[in-house]
């Protein structure tokens, strides 16, 4: 009989008795290697130390030397019912990263509280973390009942206080168990010293945990992990790969992708080395080929059209966030985030509420950073619209991490999708223009002197479509007609202004920002500024347009027009006739009254 292993984690403030509890569970269920218990006992005797069940866990020399559990080490044990993996999450604040790592894998969790010491700041923090990690089954163990004379009153008081706290976080603890871990009371059998407690003991509780649901009943979600086209051996397949995180799907089903909104039909389901797979369900890593040769990117979410259950698409997310980075998280600073299978750029634009903080003053107004171990409710804004779910709908696509200094430094869950109004960039541009020192010469003064208004002409299109040729000829034509035109090839920025940028998504974002700011500077001087860009999408264009404001942009696209949201001003064939193309652009400039007819 196949028994699926269940993972649970034990979380608690340091010295509240985690290791003792785990040592006891291992010893009492005969899960220790033969002779282990005896040898540890003998070791203690020889070194005149009192034997501790906690010693059993010290797998590493180093740990024994330090006397603290340094990582979410795993131990295994089994009961009649099934196999278990215990994740021992260290309680020391310094090791919170390890605790998070361990606890994120758990199906269920025990929060341990010392009856004598009561609820510590850390016990609360552990509650916040459990709610952020979205662990559904929570049981609270009140340990060291021997130190409070097995008093029901003490137990009840702690239960009452802590339960109120957990309820506020949306956690419904399954039950509270009073134990004395050291003496094994209420672990494997009920304790004589606490006859007032008649509910499940710890082992019974463990057997009572439910394994994680398989999500098959839920609506279908397939976040695209990667897209493969291996050519070796004449392989023609273009495979969308990933893991089915919920629901089921059949070959022949119609699918739709988010945020791109593209549609197609599943041609084949791919699992090496099988052929002809008719359907696949949640939990499996597989691949799909489509009837149409769509350009789908990693990070998109594939859904079934007929289910009509689609993810959110937005640029603004309301989230709960736990920060554990060495450096504080700065509001308005761009960070790399991962959500679902997408990696993108985002920033926190607003703190809504500080849930837990090590700082004394909780003044949200003045808060411009999120400190280490803060739990906050905030708004995250991504550089481009992304697709995601609310955590209560689909947890896989409803939780995210933030990366800083090469490490996962924050994690959180999405609780809301906000409208795209009030985007940070609009706010920024507005403020920038208010603060701008315009000197004594107005925009109109310049236009009058130059005989034309300023404009940013951006030529887009794939590589090799004749963008540069058009740009330089246009510059010359304008110049010869007495207009102040200036062309910049972006390649010239690479070694200068943009020398610090690499090809990471992060730097691409920064490149776009600088382009927009640069355009604002040139258009501000009153000239017609011309440049050409390839590999630029709807949202980049939108961003550049906004950053160039209050001045105007004119976008000329050459070749295939892939812009769905951004409407370009002119669309020309690839490698256009240059004279004709410059004429068309001049026409457009006249139409917009950038240059005036009679000046020509």
């Amino acid at each position, binding site marked *: 009989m196949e028994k699926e292993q269940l993972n649970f984690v034990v979380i608690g403030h340091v010295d509240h008795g985690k290791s003792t509890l785990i040592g006891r569970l291992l010893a009492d269920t005969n899960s220790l290697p033969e002779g282990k218990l005896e040898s540890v006992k003998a070791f203690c005797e020889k070194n005149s130390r009192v034997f501790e069940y906690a010693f059993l866990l010290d797998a590493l020399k180093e740990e024994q030397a330090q006397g603290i559990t340094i*990582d979410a080490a795993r131990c295994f044990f089994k009961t009649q019912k099934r196999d278990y993996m215990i994740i021992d999450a260290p309680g020391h604040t310094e090791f919170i990263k390890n605790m998070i790592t361990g606890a994120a894998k758990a199906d269920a969790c025990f929060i341990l509280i010392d009856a004598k010491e009561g609820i510590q700041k850390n016990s609360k923090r552990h509650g916040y973390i459990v709610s952020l990690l979205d662990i559904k089954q929570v049981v609270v163990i009140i340990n060291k009942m021997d130190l409070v004379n097995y008093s029901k009153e003490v137990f009840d008081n702690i239960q009452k206080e802590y339960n109120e706290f957990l309820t506020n976080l949306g956690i419904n603890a399954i039950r509270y168990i009073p134990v004395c871990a050291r003496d094994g009371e209420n672990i494997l059998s009920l304790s004589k010293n606490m006859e007032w407690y008649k509910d499940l003991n710890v082992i019974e509780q463990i057997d009572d945990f439910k394994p994680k649901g398989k999500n098959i009943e839920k609506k279908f979600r397939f976040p695209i992990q990667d897209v493969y086209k291996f050519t070796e051996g004449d392989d023609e397949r273009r495979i969308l790969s990933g893991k089915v995180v919920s629901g089921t799907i059949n070959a022949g089903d119609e699918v739709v992708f988010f945020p791109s909104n593209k549609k197609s039909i599943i041609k084949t389901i791919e699992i090496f080395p099988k052929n002809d797979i008719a359907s696949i369900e949640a939990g499996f890593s597989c691949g799909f080929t489509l009837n149409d040769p769509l350009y789908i990117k990693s990070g998109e979410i594939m859904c079934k059209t007929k289910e009509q259950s689609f993810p959110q698409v937005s640029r603004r997310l309301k989230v709960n966030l736990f920060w554990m980075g060495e450096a504080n998280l700065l509001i308005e600073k761009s960070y790399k985030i991962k959500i679902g299978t997408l990696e993108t750029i985002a920033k926190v634009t607003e703190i809504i509420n500080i849930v837990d903080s090590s700082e004394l003053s909780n003044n949200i107004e003045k808060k411009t950073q999120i400190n280490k171990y803060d739990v906050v409710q905030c708004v995250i804004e991504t550089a481009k619209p992304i697709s995601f779910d609310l955590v209560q709908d689909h947890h896989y696509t409803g939780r995210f991490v933030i990366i800083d200094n*090469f490490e996962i430094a924050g994690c959180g869950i999405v609780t809301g999708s906000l409208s795209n109004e009030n985007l940070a960039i609009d706010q920024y541009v507005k403020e920038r223009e208010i603060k701008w020192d315009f000197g004594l010469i107005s925009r109109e003064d310049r236009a009058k002197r130059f005989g034309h208004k300023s404009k940013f002409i951006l030529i887009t299109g794939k590589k090799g479509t004749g963008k540069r040729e058009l740009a330089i000829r246009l510059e010359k034509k304008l110049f010869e007609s007495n207009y102040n035109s200036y062309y910049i090839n972006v390649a010239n920025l690479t070694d200068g202004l943009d020398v610090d940028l690499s090809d990471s998504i992060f730097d691409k974002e920064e490149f776009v920002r600088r382009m927009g700011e640069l355009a604002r500077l040139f258009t501000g001087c009153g000239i017609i500024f011309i440049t050409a860009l390839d590999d630029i999408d709807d949202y980049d264009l939108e961003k550049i347009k906004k950053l160039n404001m209050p001045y105007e942009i004119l976008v000329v696209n050459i070749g295939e027009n892939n812009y769905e949201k951004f409407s370009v001003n002119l669309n020309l064939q690839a490698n256009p006739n240059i004279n004709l193309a410059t004429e068309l652009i001049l026409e457009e400039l006249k139409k917009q009254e950038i240059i005036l007819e009679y000046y020509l």
Partner: protein
Amino acid sequence: MDRIERLEAESIFILRDAYKYFKTKNLGMLWSIGKDSTVLLYLARKAFFGHIPFPLVHIDTHYKIPEMIEFRDKIALEWKLDMIYGENSEALQKKYTFPDQKVDRLTCCKYLKSDALKHTLSGEWQRYRLDHNLKKYIKDAKTDPFNGVIVGIRADEEGSRSKERCFSPRSENNEWNVGDQPPEVWQYFNTDFPKGCHIRIHPLLDWTELDIWEYIKKENIPVISLYFDQGQGKRYRSLGCYPCTTPINSISKNVDEIIEELKTGKLANIAERSGRAQDKEDGGGLENLRRDGYM
């Protein structure tokens, strides 16, 4: 979906993330020819739909049991693997080895495995690459370092391995800071790293020895015959160099019998690597070797 299927799905997910983030940064996979890394190799074929889009790296100590090398090359040709091996030619030449009685077992491991691995990955020492037309190894002209290395270790093998992350950064000197590792949360791994650092990727951490054998059975994965009793009542449970590896007493002749043997708990109280003499030299030896880059 049973346990094995779940483990398979997770390992494939990790392999694909490794490829996603490291394909442009020189990714390679270590293949020791043993059962674990052979399962890993098979999982990679699954992850990439029959292809393996990165090279396999083997460290040849030249004291490997000869069948292992035969097996390696047979599979490499059959599965069209981009196969590379490296070695510590200087130590071998000067006979700084345990079998030559010049150094102790642990030092020998350090020279022939850790050092060879480190310098093969960094590209400082000569690598040999399998030429599929000539069917033999030729000197590899490429010397760029591997920045991502996929390794088939399991958490249940011994203490220090249970502290590993799926994506684990190693500093320039191959150092591993056990106490201060970045967190791994949910399906997210640490895939960014500073220059000079490289990443070890561990898709098999959650597998047990029994899982490995059950998967070998389910998918009919070829493994080397040394794992089976050939009639002498002995078989290898873990493979290494012949001077330091001894078979265990067991009469399991095939995969089914090994699964039975593991399930009934006959081996429950014997460590899996008990046939590996270097582990015994010193209690914390393996952890020290791991910090130095030994897998």
